[in-house]
């Protein structure tokens, strides 16, 4: 078989993917943050020990945290105080002002599994469709979705996880899609 330029490109892509997969989790003493001279470091749990047991991802902690929660790999507590009210909202919002990118589908459900309504409303997002001038520059500088995404939730390299609804196939109306809860 003749070696063609596109084979080289393919090899580069595969190699990049393998690199990303193989890098694994650094041990605490090699992570650049923990002081290896601290004897107590041996008592701390290593990331690889915990995270390798969870559904794998290619970015962030290399864990699909929503799947880990949904499929009960983890059962994190929802509250400490018994009187704290736990609200899960099952409502999607479609955002259409995305330029040429696919539309953004924001699912309340996974967000409210982790967060309380007051974490976002109205500190970060006014609770009204079209009231928030969300844009990628603001997000990249740590505002709106960027308060968490890019810092603690999946990173901003993963465009299609939010921009997930193709313009060509979406026939509905943007904004609130359903409310079952």
């Amino acid at each position, binding site marked *: 078989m003749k070696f063609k330029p596109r084979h080289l*490109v393919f090899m580069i892509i595969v190699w*990049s993917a393998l690199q990303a997969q193989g890098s694994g989790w650094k041990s605490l003493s090699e992570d650049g943050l*923990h002081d290896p001279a601290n004897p107590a470091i041996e*008592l701390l749990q290593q990331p690889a020990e915990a995270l390798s047991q969870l559904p794998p991802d290619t970015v962030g902690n290399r864990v699909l945290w929503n799947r880990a929660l949904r499929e009960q790999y983890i059962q*994190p507590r929802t*509250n400490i105080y018994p009187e704290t009210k736990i609200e899960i909202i099952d409502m999607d919002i479609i955002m259409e002002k995305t330029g040429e990118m696919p539309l953004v589908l924001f699912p309340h459900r996974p967000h409210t599994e982790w*967060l309380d309504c007051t974490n976002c409303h109205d500190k970060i997002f006014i609770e009204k469709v079209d009231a928030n001038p969300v844009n990628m520059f603001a997000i990249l500088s740590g505002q709106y979705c960027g308060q968490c995404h890019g810092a603690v939730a999946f990173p901003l390299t993963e465009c299609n996880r939010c921009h997930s609804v193709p313009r060509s196939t979406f026939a509905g109306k943007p904004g609130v899609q359903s409310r079952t809860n």
Partner: protein
Amino acid sequence: MIQMIMLSTMNALNNIIGSGRRLLLIGLAGLGATGFSSGVSAEYADVVLNRLSDKNDVRPVIFPHWFHRIRFRCKVCHNELAFEMRAGANEITMGKIIDGQYCGLCHNNEVAWGVDNCSLCHSGKPGLKTGIRGSNQTGGPGRW
């Protein structure tokens, strides 16, 4: 020999720019991302807290989000406990922790280890700057 390889690579690249520029860009972007992330070794979303530690001759605190997230949902600390979502924005002191505020709601020898285990939390290299680490994969301006 090396020149020949370089020449053939150049030719190959020229062809690619003609025929598959998008693929090449994806490949290069992949390479770039890989190179960049390998330079970042802290676990994603680790937080360094060094508002007071260095000044008081103890190691800075390393807060691992991944460890806590397995056990608690975000809302426990960021709603019930009122931790601001901005590294360094919370005026945490050992006095407040002993009083049961901030980390002290759990780190009290009941839910989690207590304040007598200094070096389990104060485990960072001296001189680290307060902030979120391991997360700057986008290279955006960021203000975490």
